[in-house]
């Protein structure tokens, strides 16, 4: 089926080329049937790429090692779910996943707009098909996932042990969904600029795609952080790695865009800004993919560098940047604002300021991420920038963003009065200041000032959001007489965008409180312990009770159990381990199991006890030095035995080798059990990190808010009102505003 997969990808490429030509021809001649045909070309790309993906995934699941990427990225001993997900651990497979997701979101957007924004769609369609040509072209020409070999190996190299983690099955598709979703509003913005239809309609039809892209990127970042925290064994969840930053930059710009488009929708303002933001977000999405695939910046997440792909990506990114700048400049007069800002002290003013800070944040992250390349270009030497430098610039800006996310919900559009400001701000400010005073009184703020400010601001934001929910529900109750719970649900149901957004603000504030607490007040130390010895940290005592070891032909793991006590009371028992996966390429029959220098791959299992106030975290780094003499002896003995067996007559060779491998497994097990029977000292990294759980809880709240804002509002059509087409004369009586009614969708109908 490999041949069929390759042919399908070539057909995808041809279909994309046809679709692009048909769409542009339809746009120029006004013949909509060509545009419709071009749209269907995108549907066909989705169908064919999905079939190709299934063919490849079946090869992974069935361990068909005649496929090169299956042999290099999977094995028969890889568990089923990881085999199914191993497809995107390879450059070629992940490109195919990207194409499938791009064509899926593009098809969905084009289907939903097939009868709308007809002057914009042909150009947007062309841009999306252009992206399809680029990525399918990369696969067809440079990264063929269906490449096969005539003599397949009996066993594959296996999935990278670090990727054998539940979150890794969802993390890459989530990030790729985020990146590809952002290309939809990018394409429609280009379409609007090319067609000259620069009102708010292109924003309306793509707003949910931008929001979904934001949500997927956020979820992807969260899953990546969780993987880093529980799998990588370095003790944190965010390290300002280039590939982490690759998703953060479009996420920040998209956050700004989601806010600023409200101003364009309502006031016809910021058209240049909004177009620039989404063009930047789309370009950064491609830059993000480039960073993952190019390996130009050192990252644990990146694929191996491929110069051919790098050149292609640089050409695409340059085209996007230059084309975007030219189009915005060309249309600058048509992009002028319909209105002016009434007052800086208004929600529009807050959004503007927040936008500037978010873009500044993205710019800082971009500059520091690419600083190694910039320094290399200037000095000839790559200079890396560590997390403290990022924190130095990012933390103050993040504090401003959090403060503004609390101010936004409690300030009205267009104008405010001092009296109303006082009334709206009194409770949230009191909560924020109360938290600050309490913390200062309890702990005495002498250091970590930014963290304390974040706690105060977190309280301010949560209080402002809670106040909004309370006041909204109270107003609804007063008018409808509903129960408090029902009023709250109905309020959110009928104003999903507003209250979903408020929940996101609260969630982000809670998450950042978790970040501030866990990074500023973390206690961490390395300890080298023998069984029975203890280490003390932040009031906890961790005693290394006993070592553990397990060995098989697939994996050797060395671990430890640690009993944790506080004040003499047992708190928990933590189990941590260090796993080694044998290399298939190395010659040393024993060393390839135990020595990373011989190609053995490693993973860490963290011992973790999570709580609302603190996480206890430990990871073992076993000293394998005492085993080296045994390993060397084993290598010598088994190498000569294997050599002798291979020289034996063919009839005896198989049985002799089989016996040797059985003895080798026994030997490896004996070596591993030495760690338990004659234990020596191992090194542990131990951490007590406060409030980490609030990072995950905050992110879940923010995700829930994003889903609420994303969920479509059902359109109600009251009896007697024709919802779509009206005739002349229907507009005449505008009902008087009735002070006793809550705004509802039906009220919108009253206007006509």
């Amino acid at each position, binding site marked *: 089926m490999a041949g069929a997969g390759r042919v399908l990808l070539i057909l995808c490429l041809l279909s994309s080329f046809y679709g692009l030509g048909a769409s542009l021809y339809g746009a120029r001649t006004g013949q909509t049937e060509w545009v419709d045909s071009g749209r269907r070309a995108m549907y*066909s790309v989705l169908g064919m790429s999905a*079939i190709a993906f299934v063919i490849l995934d079946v090869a992974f699941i069935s361990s068909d090692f005649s496929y090169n990427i299956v042999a290099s990225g999977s094995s028969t001993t890889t568990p089923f779910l990881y085999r199914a997900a191993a497809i995107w651990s390879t450059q070629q497979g992940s490109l195919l996943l990207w194409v499938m997701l791009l064509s899926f979101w593009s098809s969905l957007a084009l289907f939903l707009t097939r009868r709308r*924004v*007809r002057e914009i769609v042909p150009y947007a369609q062309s841009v999306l098909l252009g992206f399809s040509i680029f990525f399918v072209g990369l696969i067809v020409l440079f990264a063929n996932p269906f490449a096969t070999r005539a003599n397949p190996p009996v066993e594959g190299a296996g999935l990278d042990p670090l990727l054998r983690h539940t979150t890794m099955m969802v993390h890459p598709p989530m990030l790729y969904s985020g990146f590809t979703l952002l290309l939809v509003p990018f394409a429609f913005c280009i379409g609007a600029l090319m067609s000259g239809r620069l009102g*708010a309609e292109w924003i309306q039809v793509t707003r949910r795609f931008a929001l979904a892209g934001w949500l997927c990127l956020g979820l992807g970042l969260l899953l990546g952080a969780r993987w880093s925290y529980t799998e990588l064994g370095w003790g944190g969840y965010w390290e300002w790695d280039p590939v982490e930053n690759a998703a953060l930059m479009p996420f920040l710009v998209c956050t700004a865009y989601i806010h600023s488009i409200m101003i364009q929708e*309502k006031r016809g303002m910021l058209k240049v800004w909004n177009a620039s933001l989404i063009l930047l977000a789309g370009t950064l999405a491609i830059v993000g993919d480039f960073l993952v695939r190019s390996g130009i910046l050192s990252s644990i997440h990146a694929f191996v560098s491929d110069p051919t792909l790098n050149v292609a990506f640089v050409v695409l990114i340059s085209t996007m940047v230059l084309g975007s700048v030219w189009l915005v400049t060309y249309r600058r007069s048509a992009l002028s604002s319909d209105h002016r800002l009434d007052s800086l002290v208004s929600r529009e003013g807050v959004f503007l300021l927040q936008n500037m800070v978010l873009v500044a944040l993205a710019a800082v992250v971009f500059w520091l991420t690419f600083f190694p390349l910039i320094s290399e270009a200037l000095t000839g030497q790559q200079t890396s920038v560590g997390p403290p430098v990022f924190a130095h610039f990012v933390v103050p800006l993040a504090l401003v963003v959090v403060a503004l996310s609390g101010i936004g919900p409690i300030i009205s*559009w267009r104008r405010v009065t001092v009296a109303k400001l006082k*009334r709206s701000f009194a409770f949230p400010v009191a909560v924020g200041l109360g938290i600050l005073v309490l913390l200062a009184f309890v702990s005495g703020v002498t250091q970590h000032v930014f963290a304390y400010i974040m706690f105060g601001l977190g309280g301010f934001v949560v209080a402002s959001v809670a106040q909004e929910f309370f006041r909204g529900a109270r107003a609804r109750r007063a008018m409808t007489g509903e129960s408090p719970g029902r009023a709250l649900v109905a309020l959110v149901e009928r104003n999903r965008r507003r209250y979903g957004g408020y929940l996101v603000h609260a969630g982000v504030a809670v998450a950042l409180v978790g970040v501030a607490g866990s990074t500023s007040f973390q206690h961490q130390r390395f300890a080298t312990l023998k069984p029975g010895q203890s280490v003390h940290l932040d009031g906890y005592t961790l005693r290394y009770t006993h070592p553990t070891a397990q060995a098989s032909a697939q994996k050797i793991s060395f671990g430890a159990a640690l009993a944790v006590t506080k004040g003499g009371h047992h708190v928990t028992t933590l189990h941590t381990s260090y796993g080694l996966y044998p290399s298939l390429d190395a010659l040393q029959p024993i060393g390839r199991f135990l020595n990373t220098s011989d190609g053995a791959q490693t993973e860490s299992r963290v011992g973790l006890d999570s709580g609302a106030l603190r996480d206890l975290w430990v990871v073992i780094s076993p000293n394998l030095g005492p085993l080296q003499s045994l390993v060397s002896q084993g290598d010598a003995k088994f190498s000569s035995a294997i050599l002798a067996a291979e020289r034996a007559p063919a009839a005896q060779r198989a049985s002799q080798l089989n016996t040797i491998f059985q003895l080798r497994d026994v030997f490896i097990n004996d070596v591993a059990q030495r760690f338990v029977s004659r234990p020596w000292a191992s090194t542990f990294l131990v951490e007590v990190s406060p409030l980490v759980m609030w990072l995950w809880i905050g992110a879940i709240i923010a995700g829930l808010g994003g889903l609420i804002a994303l969920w479509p509002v059902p359109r109600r059509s009251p009896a007697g009102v024709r919802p779509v087409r009206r005739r002349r004369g229907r507009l005449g009586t505008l009902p008087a505003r009735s002070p006793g009614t809550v705004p509802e969708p039906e009220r919108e109908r009253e206007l006509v």
Partner: protein
Amino acid sequence: MAYALVLVVLAGVIYLISGPLRAAHRPDDPEGETADVAELEAARDAKYREIRDAELDARTGKLSDEDYADLDGSLRAEAVQILHQLDEARSHEEVPSGS
């Protein structure tokens, strides 16, 4: 098997893509919107949302009664203007020019 799959897919793709061209001389889709109508409908929906937001702001204590009355009045006037334009655009759409 592989050849059959490719042929079936190819036939399906050609049938799918050529569909609109085979039915090329059909009348325009009556449900479709002109660009002007789409733009005005977007403006109308945004204005409705603005009216609702202003009302919710007033009810949750962020706007004074005077400010709200002033704001609501101007927003409704703008909404009426958009609705007039929308009616006009639709009537142009329904009655072909020159008839």
